[in-house]
């Protein structure tokens, strides 16, 4: 852990650690550190690197402009919330579109935390989406997207638009896995048609 911490925001290659500590069960130790979230593993170029959690934050702040932007907005939000706690509330829309506090709207404070599409772990979202789809699958395999959204909303609490934007991404990416069908009361618009049903092929 100390070795990883010392590597700072540059992180250290997993293979380098293995070479350095050949006598130790590095994989197991790294695994346990990953589980406790003290350490983060990510790819840089073609190699896997390890960072101390705080250092990783600094690393992605310098390398991922989307994340940097989001982080800055959250920081701004913190300041605005603190200063406006007993006054008007700010809308997540204003945050997402880069507006500042002069664009204050009157949405309730808890809404702020519902618009966190950008912060969602998409891989986890997709795994959960697939699980819910399989769980609700009828004999024909088709499931209403509304039903999936309602079930997933308990965990993700994203807006309807964000939910379907994520589902559209998944369906577009894995078009050989998922099949959409028109109809239903809500879903994705394709060819001008509302597609409210989905299934795994």
């Amino acid at each position, binding site marked *: 852990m100390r070795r990883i911490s010392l*590597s700072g925001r*540059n*992180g*250290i290659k997993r293979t380098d650690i293995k070479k350095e500590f050949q006598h130790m069960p590095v994989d197991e130790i790294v695994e346990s550190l990953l589980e406790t979230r003290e350490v983060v593993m990510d*790819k*840089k*170029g*073609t190699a896997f*690197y390890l960072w101390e959690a705080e250092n990783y934050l600094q690393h992605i702040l*310098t*390398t*991922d*402009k989307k994340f940097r932007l989001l982080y800055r907005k959250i920081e701004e939000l913190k300041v605005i919330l603190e200063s406006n706690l007993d006054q008007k509330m700010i809308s997540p829309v204003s945050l997402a579109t880069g507006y500042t506090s002069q664009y204050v709207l009157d949405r309730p404070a808890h809404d702020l935390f519902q618009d966190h599409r950008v912060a969602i772990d998409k891989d986890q979202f997709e795994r959960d989406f697939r699980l819910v789809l399989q769980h609700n699958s009828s*004999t*024909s*395999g*088709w499931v*209403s997207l509304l039903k999936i959204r309602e079930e997933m909303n308990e965990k993700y609490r994203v807006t309807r638009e964000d939910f379907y934007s994520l589902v559209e991404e998944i369906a*577009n990416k894995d*078009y*050989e896995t998922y*099949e*959409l*069908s*028109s*109809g*239903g009361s809500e879903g994705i618009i*394709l*060819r001008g*048609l509302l*597609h*409210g*049903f989905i*299934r795994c*092929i």
Partner: protein
Amino acid sequence: MYPYGLAKNPFPSAATPGNEDIMLLGGERHKKAKSLAVACVEDIENKIQQEDGATQFRLVTVTQDVGSGKTHLALHLRNCRELSDKAMVSFTDLSQLLPRTIINFYNAMMKGFSKHHFDQLRQAILNDLQERAARDDGKDCRKVFGYSLWDRLKGNSLETKKRLILDNRFSHNKKALEKVFSKSFTEAEISMIQSIVGIDAGFNPPEVENLNEMLFNLGALAKINRRFLDRVTVFEIDECDSDRSSMDLLKAMINLHLPSTVLLVVLTPAAYEDIRNCNSSLYDRLEKANYRIDLAGSNALEEISEIILEYITFGRKQKPIDASEQADIRKKVKILYEEFPEFRNIRSMINVMYHTIERASRNSSRTIDEHTLDQTITSIYPGLKLRENFMSVPISEFIKIAEESMNIEEIKSRVAMAIKALLNCASDNGRVTKDALLRKNGRRIEVEFDDFVGRKTSLEFSIVNGNSESVGISAIQQQDDNQLESSMKPGILSPDVNQERASMQVQVNRHVLVDLLYFGNKYSNNQVGNDEVHRALALGESLNLY
């Protein structure tokens, strides 16, 4: 002249299949669905033979989204060779049936048979009567043909009299026919036989006033069909929905177990869901269908490509185009399919192909090239644009670059050239100085991109401060890595300060790759316009090059 040596455009132009279009059924999934329907008819035939004419009824459901070929399949079954001597198929489109009254429903189902079927049935009934009339005890049968002593004396044969009836030049004796069949057929069945034998301009089924009469008549026709043609009767009901009258009728038909009949119900998943919500009783019956034909994957890329190629082969009188042309079409279909979710549907893709073949013919093109596709798409779908691209890449260029991207060696050098062009463009337009570019990017740039064949490739360049006019860049190391696991994100750059040398890493998704190559081409040919300079600068910025 049409491309690929086609005498005419083989792709249908109508939004729904017409009689000529349905002769061809392409694609593995659609063929499997057809096999299942044929197997159902064969199964019912076997059961009838084994159980000595016992009533057999089968319910089949076909469920899939709009535009996936359900109607095409149903119409194809009505005319296919495999069922021509096994079944008499009626096709009813409920979307054309308003109001959904019993009488309209009944008439539509009767008119759903082709005239050819009734002609065959009429001939079979008259053949049966002729055979019986030739016997010594066939006096009543001879009366049906109006065959008298006078005919015998004149030397007229029963065959001649039958021919006169078939040619609608003579009407059969209805009373005699009723008497002949009164022992073996019910009143409703005799009435149906009278209508069939009495066809002149067209088949006019016996009239009905209520559901009972309708079901009796449908059953009567199925029995007559079995008795005289030894065929199963298939009623195909297309565009089924949750309309109350339709659901009631369907339920009644299922409950009655029409003899030697297959009821094939075609519906969308949405309609199926609606029925589940509105009529649990019918839904339960549909759930217990004997056969459930699922066209899952009917809009998959592979299925659509197969169907497109089959249409072309069909248009060339079953002579396939050569392998390289097939591969070329598959590539183009793949690009359209992947880049435009709007075309991930067999109906839409066939529409594109119809217009493309027409345009290729007008352009006197021997194949479908990217320019023809571009012209077609921009003319029939004027609002359709490539998404996610910075540069305004024409569809034809996108297709061309995507096709060229299969050649990885060529792409490597072009990516290098394009990055250099982007840096030069920024420098030329006063966005940054060359020194700043070098400070920002370090001495090396590592570009990692995903191509159009599913590979991810890494390239590393060294940047050298060349002459005063340009920022030099040269590839010092090239590596392919098919096993890269990282997900590619557009334009993500990281200053890799962990290594001794200062270097930048750029990850490029395939849309940005196309942008890069498109810009690289333009730049090297001095064709970059003012608008494109701004787009290129934005592209370089998105890659964090300056």
